[in-house]
């Protein structure tokens, strides 16, 4: 019976291979073709944003193939792999990705990709480019996995310093954090900020660090503690449900402490979950990437180009921006690698070298990202990092500040 099952497995795989062959996009014959493996989560926890994120990054590859790629005589093929946001699934997919695609770079999504591949990529000499901010636990020298943004803690520290300057005065800014132990990544975000506050008491006075569930029952009591402690800002980088519960808790207390959110739980997402953006009037989102606001910025213009000419269907929001940023810095690095090594015989190792060799300027990423100077010391640029701040004014998302400097944060 087991022998039969094995035959069944073969059959299935043949069928699978046929299906793959049948659905591969038709190849337009270019001089050189390189493959990118796109790790995606269409059926797991990120299923709601994945189509938009994927739309963003795929549109960038199409754009690059038709513009820069054509000039250089290079075409980038890509293929999505479904990871279900599960490390086990990534690990079982990886050998197939290598043999089927032989990619020069992996375009990753989240924690499970990092967990499953952090020890494999150096062996296989293929770099991976992420879309999100970095984590403290991935802050290792000699990385093969890279983030275009600093850690979440860097981003919140940058924002808080900007806020203190806006307020003026010498007093440290009184800050509360709302975190959760549901995921180690959430804990990591809080830990970094805690360490910074401890080392810079003159800048940030951490009045409360509250851990709660990913879907809190009630935060009224916790928010009263935050209010009583005189907090001037509330950092919530976990998820949307916690933002909503915290907002309700603040409203119950009759308080309006500005909340700072990150990209994955930002203003549009949290506003939607609250039932209206106007309820987030005066709250902030801050991250090291262009804010998807109504203002006419270079990023916005590039998005419009992608929509008009390259088949992008996603709306203009932070998730699309994340996909486009990821796509842009990935193709820019590859572009640099081609410039340095020629169009032929490009390898993953060369791509990684190109990342360290030359900064990725903000012009090259159409303003989606600040100028990035990667070094082998960390998976993200340690110098010259910037954070952008968005807010809600009159029920609309507007850009409050751009290019806010991120202070030096010690590794925790």
């Amino acid at each position, binding site marked *: 019976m087991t022998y039969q099952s094995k035959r069944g497995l073969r059959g*299935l795989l043949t069928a699978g291979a046929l299906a793959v062959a049948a659905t591969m996009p038709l190849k337009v014959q270019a001089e050189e073709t390189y493959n990118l493996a796109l790790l995606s989560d*269409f*059926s797991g926890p990120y299923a709601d944003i994945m189509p938009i994120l994927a739309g963003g990054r795929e549109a960038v590859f199409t754009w690059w193939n038709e513009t820069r790629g054509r000039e250089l005589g290079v075409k980038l093929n890509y293929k999505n792999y479904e990871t*279900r946001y599960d490390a086990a699934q990534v690990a079982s997919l990886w*050998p*197939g990705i290598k*043999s089927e695609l032989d990619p020069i770079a992996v375009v990753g999504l989240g924690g499970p990709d990092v967990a499953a591949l952090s020890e494999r990529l150096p062996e296989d000499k293929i770099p991976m480019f992420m879309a999100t901010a970095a984590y*403290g636990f991935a802050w290792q020298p000699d990385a093969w996995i890279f983030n275009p943004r600093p850690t979440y803690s860097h981003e919140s520290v940058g924002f808080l310093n900007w806020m203190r300057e806006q307020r003026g005065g010498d007093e440290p800014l009184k800050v509360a954090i709302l975190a959760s132990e549901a995921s180690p990544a959430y804990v990591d975000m809080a830990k970094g900020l805690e360490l910074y506050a401890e080392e810079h008491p003159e800048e940030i006075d951490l009045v409360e660090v509250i851990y709660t569930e990913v879907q809190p029952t009630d935060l009224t009591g916790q928010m009263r503690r935050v209010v009583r402690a005189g907090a001037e800002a509330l950092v919530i980088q976990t998820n949307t449900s916690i933002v909503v519960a915290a907002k309700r808790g603040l409203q119950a207390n009759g308080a309006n402490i500005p909340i700072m959110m990150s990209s994955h739980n930002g203003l549009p997402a949290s506003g939607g979950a609250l039932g209206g953006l106007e309820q987030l009037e005066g709250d902030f989102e801050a991250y090291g990437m262009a804010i998807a606001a109504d203002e006419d910025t270079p990023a916005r213009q590039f998005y419009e180009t992608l929509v008009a000419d390259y088949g992008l269907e996603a709306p203009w929001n932070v998730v699309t921006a994340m996909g486009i940023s990821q796509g842009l810095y990935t193709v820019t690095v590859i572009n640099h690698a081609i410039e340095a090594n020629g169009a032929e015989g490009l390898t993953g190792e060369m791509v990684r070298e190109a990342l360290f060799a030359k900064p990725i300027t903000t012009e090259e990423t159409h303003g989606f990202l600040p100028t990035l100077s990667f070094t082998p010391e960390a998976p993200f640029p340690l110098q010259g990092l910037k954070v952008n701040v968005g807010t809600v004014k009159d029920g609309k998302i507007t850009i409050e500040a751009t290019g806010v400097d991120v202070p030096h944060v010690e590794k925790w």
Partner: protein
Amino acid sequence: MDPSGVFPTSYRSDRRIVRTRWQALALVLFMGLLLAAPYLVSGRIIAILNMMMISAVIAVGLQICTGYAGQINLGQAAFMGVGAYTASILASKTGLTFLLTIPLAGLSAALFGFLFGLTAARIKGFYLALTTIAAQFLFHFAVLNLPSTWLGGSNGITVPPAELFGLRFVSETAQFYMNFAVTAIMVAGAFGIVRSRFGRAFVAVRDDDVAAGIMGINVAATKANAFLIGAFYAGVGGALWAYLIRFVGVDQFTLFHSIFFVAMIIVGGMGSIVGALVGVFVIRIIQEIIATVGPNIADSVSFLGGDIVFAGMNVVLGGVIALFMILEPKGLMHRWNILKSSYRIWPFPY
């Protein structure tokens, strides 16, 4: 189960695992094929087999604890996590060889499992089963809140590759042989356990613990043993997992993972070691199909909307499990045995 009319004629033959020549032949063929697999199939399949073998070790342990001894265990992933963390810490901090870390991982998980099993002396039935969920939450809490120098906290732990005589087990193939060896030993051991004195005590306690007690079986100790053995298997599986992924983090061992291990033994059939293996195979293969054909379907039938395709995949997985429970509550192995018996006694109905 043999059909009526076929009886073992001696105690020895009753205890025998491989009953017929055909079975022996099939077993040899199967093992041979598996051993040769790295030379026959692609790396992707080897990776799937690696994952299946690790799951098999864990599911077989759960089968002994739940399927044989009747102790529902929803903390198997936590026990696996204890094993994975033990192996990772030993390997990364003391540099101990995997020949030692794997059994030690099993032992430490067994100890953790035994602590929960000990409550069996007082707690009965569901109450006991549900305390295993507490194991899951306590494990998560402990890892995140103990000083990060102990268990890595939210940072997780990076694991050096397994090494033996200068050979590093990093390639899929090398890991395959390592996993194969451990899995073979563990599965053979499981067959040994279930037909030993322990195995019979397990079944007796599962079927009627009061009666088992009257027959002189120490019921509490038997239940604790079931947890101990089940957790040992989970720990060994966890260690293999650590060496395969080479990075452990607490979010790799959640309640949902535990539920999937339960699903595997449901689908395969309760109370059968082979059933556990079949269940692992079926569930993993469904997961792999989702991962493999999902993106293609979504690409090719864009008019259907990729969303529906992918959400449908979760339904398939849950549906398979629920359907098994409704149509075949005794699992695939039971159906196979019925087919086999009715073939042998044909044309008689019984």
